[in-house]
């Protein structure tokens, strides 16, 4: 038999893939990473190219999706997945990427940490997850937005937008309706201080167009770090299409090459991993369960901030919030507040019943006092399933939907939120919208850790009935809280990789 290509083959260079690679490489294991994308980053191009696209692709008329998903960077990251993954949606927008760095090329960099209660049903203990949170935080660099008037205790901070700061201040001086609402400066994976290879955030507000300074964390940056190790090898343009096990595992790719290793680590993103495993799983009539977070966007106006000028800051989330609005464990939402004034005006003006010139004048006058809150529900409020095409048995369709009674809970939430907006001196504007399932791109729970049967995995992410096949992305997160998920995906991948480094094949000396 041929010598295996590596001790571990990792499929996918997104946040999950790189987080699994670091501990293995550090322990001297030979890691081969395959990614469907390549290095064609858009980092050093002119602003014009970033905003409008190298081929002016942004000058295509607005397709109505969120501004974030419409920028040229986003189109570039998402389009290949749309075309090549073989996954379609019905009442569901399947979001995935086949680009080096995965969705972290366009993510919002919002960070949440789960606590003991959140992982009560997981087959792991909180201490091991927390150690991994710590390691990941140090590696990727995390900053908090801070009110610049308050002193920070030496921790890295970014200036808070003036309107957000005003709202945060109101929150401290007015008495909460009950103790269930929390508002705090957002925690973002954005650098406030330079690091090797990455500059600090320059506050230009260009975040949506692919951070040119590299201040926003992107797993591409980690790939560059990993490549410095002799144990690590990355092969670009290698889209895995098949997995086969004989004595070892063999990965077949779209260009006909194949690579083998005793252990395979899948980090292709929840949808990418499902596509790769479709032939190995008995996906029947019912379909494969997929957790995603229903999301609600709410426009708000701060009358007290009308006509005031804004503080230069980044254009990602300024504030984080959470709210318990009922008695059930899942009556809990997490969210973020963005300042509209720091987002591109066009997509807002496109929706106004005013002429463009007047629309722009209106935006410039009141944009600084407008906020958008995005609210995420826990995954059990969604009802989405991945189905296999009955005739071809190959392509996958995701049918999206909401949990029973969801509309009633939406009303309860809106009522609770309105009370809080009032307390914060905010006016909720018309135009709140619930997004189509999938748009949130917070996916989990297809192959949960600790579950028995063909769809479960071990605490080490090893797929039941398939020894040597580990999964480290969101697929194995057993339940999806309303909190931001990526930090947890990364920590969990780190945790698993540490375990594998301890227990699996010592390096051949």
């Amino acid at each position, binding site marked *: 038999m041929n010598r295996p290509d590596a001790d571990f083959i990792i499929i996918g260079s997104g946040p999950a893939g790189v987080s699994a690679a670091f501990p293995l490489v550090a322990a001297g294991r030979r890691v081969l990473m395959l990614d469907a994308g390549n290095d064609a980053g858009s980092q050093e191009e002119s602003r014009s190219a970033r905003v409008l696209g190298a081929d002016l692709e942004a000058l295509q008329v607005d397709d109505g999706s969120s501004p974030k998903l419409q920028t040229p960077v986003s189109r570039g990251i998402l389009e290949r997945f749309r075309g090549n993954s073989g996954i379609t949606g019905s009442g569901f927008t399947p979001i995935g990427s086949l680009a080096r760095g995965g969705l972290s090329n366009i993510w919002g960099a919002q960070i949440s940490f789960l606590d003991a209660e959140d992982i009560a049903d997981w087959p792991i203990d909180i201490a091991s997850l927390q150690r991994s949170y710590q390691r990941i935080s140090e590696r990727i660099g995390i900053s908090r937005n801070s009110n610049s008037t308050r002193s920070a205790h030496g921790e890295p901070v970014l200036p808070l937008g003036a309107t957000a700061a005003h709202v945060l201040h109101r929150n401290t001086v007015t008495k909460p309706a009950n103790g269930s609402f929390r508002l705090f400066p957002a925690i973002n994976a954005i650098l406030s201080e330079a690091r090797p290879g990455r500059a600090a955030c320059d506050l230009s507000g260009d975040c949506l167009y692919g951070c040119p300074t590299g201040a926003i964390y992107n797993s591409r940056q980690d790939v560059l770090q990993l490549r410095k190790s002799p144990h690590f090898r990355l092969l670009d343009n290698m889209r895995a299409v098949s997995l086969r096990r004989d004595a070892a595992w063999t990965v077949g790719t779209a260009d006909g090459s194949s690579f083998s290793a005793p252990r395979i680590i899948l980090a292709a993103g929840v949808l990418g991993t499902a596509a790769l495993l479709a032939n190995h799983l008995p996906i029947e009539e019912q379909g494969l369960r997929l957790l995603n977070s229903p999301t609600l966007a709410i426009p708000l106006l701060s009358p007290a901030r009308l006509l005031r000028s804004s503080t230069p800051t980044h254009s990602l989330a300024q504030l984080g919030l959470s709210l318990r609005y009922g008695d059930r464990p899942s009556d809990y939402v997490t969210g973020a507040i963005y300042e509209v004034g720091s987002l591109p005006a066009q997509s807002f003006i496109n929706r106004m019943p005013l002429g463009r010139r007047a629309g722009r004048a209106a935006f*410039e006058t009141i944009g600084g006092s407008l906020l958008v809150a995005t609210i995420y529900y826990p995954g059990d409020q969604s009802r989405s399933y991945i189905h296999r095409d009955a005739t071809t048995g190959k392509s996958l369709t995701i049918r999206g939907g909401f949990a029973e009674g969801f509309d009633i809970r939406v009303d309860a939430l809106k009522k609770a939120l309105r009370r809080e907006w009032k307390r914060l001196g905010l006016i909720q504007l018309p135009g709140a919208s619930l997004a189509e399932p999938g748009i949130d791109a917070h996916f989990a729970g297809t192959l949960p850790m600790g579950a028995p049967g063909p769809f479960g995995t071990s605490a080490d992410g090893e797929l039941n009935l398939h020894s040597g096949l580990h999964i480290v992305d969101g697929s194995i997160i057993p339940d999806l809280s309303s909190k931001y998920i990526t930090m947890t995906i990364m920590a969990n991948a780190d945790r698993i990789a540490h375990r594998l480094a301890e227990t699996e094949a010592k390096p051949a000396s």
Partner: protein
Amino acid sequence: MAPRLIITGSTGYIGARLAAMARERGFDVVELGRRPEAKWRIGDEPATSDLEGAAAVIHLAHSWATGAETAEENNINISGTVTLAKAAKAAGVRRFVFASSTSSRREALNVYGRTKFRIEQHLATSPAAPIVRIARIGLVYGGPRTAMFGLMAKLSVLSPLLPMIGLSRKVQPIHLDEVAAGLLALATDENQPPQTFVLAQERPISFAAWLRILRRSQGKGKLHFIPIPLAAALFACRMTKLVPLVPTVDPERVLGLAGAAPMESGESLKLLKLNLADPMTVLSQELGQKSEEPSRSEAGALLRYLGSTPTEAQLQRLSEGLRREGLAPLGLSPTLIKHPRLLALYEPPANRTQHRLAKALYLADLASEPERQRGQKAGLFDAILTIGTDILLLPLRALLARRYR
């Protein structure tokens, strides 16, 4: 010394290009005819001194003064041309090139075609016959958008639906430069046999197809026709003479389109070494290039309307974006281009995303985004004025917005 070439009708559509080309090729061009200092008009006996020493006379001038059909026999164009040819022969000029037409026929429907035919006949029996070369010219296109070509180019983009007569009439287009080159060859090439030449595409196409080519080459879509019977068209022409303020249409023009048979041009083209280009290709280039100008000035107007001082990069981006979205040219009136603020009268609400002008303004907004200064604010007063005006003008704009829909 440069050979001398005499051109009559040198201020016309063909004449101007021919004179320019001849000069470029080193001829000493003498323009005979309609110029302020001109001593000669068609029908006059030319001064021998004007003709002496010339290598050739190319006669393009045609007088439209004799409109009446009864005047056909003693049409000034017939006698005038023969007089000029005879004088040229007498002055020792070696070649006399007469610009005729592919509509030249004894039984032609229009006076023009019949007159050209008569001139050809008279020249052939005149003492000048040995130096005469006749060029029957097809439907000339290209170059400046004047004369018949300009009219057709405009007509073809007027609307996707055109009432038109003579749709099945076959036409044989030829580019202005090719005509000029052919005439020049006839005037200067010693070896051309004394015969009638046909300067026109070999393969005739229907007039309808020709208008479609004109429309497509200007970046517009399909063209549909409502065929009009000849009698109705002629009647309409007569009516235009009676109705005040409506431009009159000469029935001559209508009759010219009504009927003609194609002419064989292959041999002539071979003799003159003319390799005719494909009209669609040439036109797309010429008209495309020309239409870039209006689309650029439109781009400038849109950007200025949105309050930016357009940079070169923005203009380029926007023109390109407008072109790709099929919005160029939008057809903004010259007044609007000069005073973009007036666009406020025509602008629909920004959420009417299917409206052409709304779309174009969205692109303009986006095209100026990379250079936009963050936090740059219009004054409050200005903003209120702009928004207030916008709301007040709404009913009026709902009405006017149709114009650029």
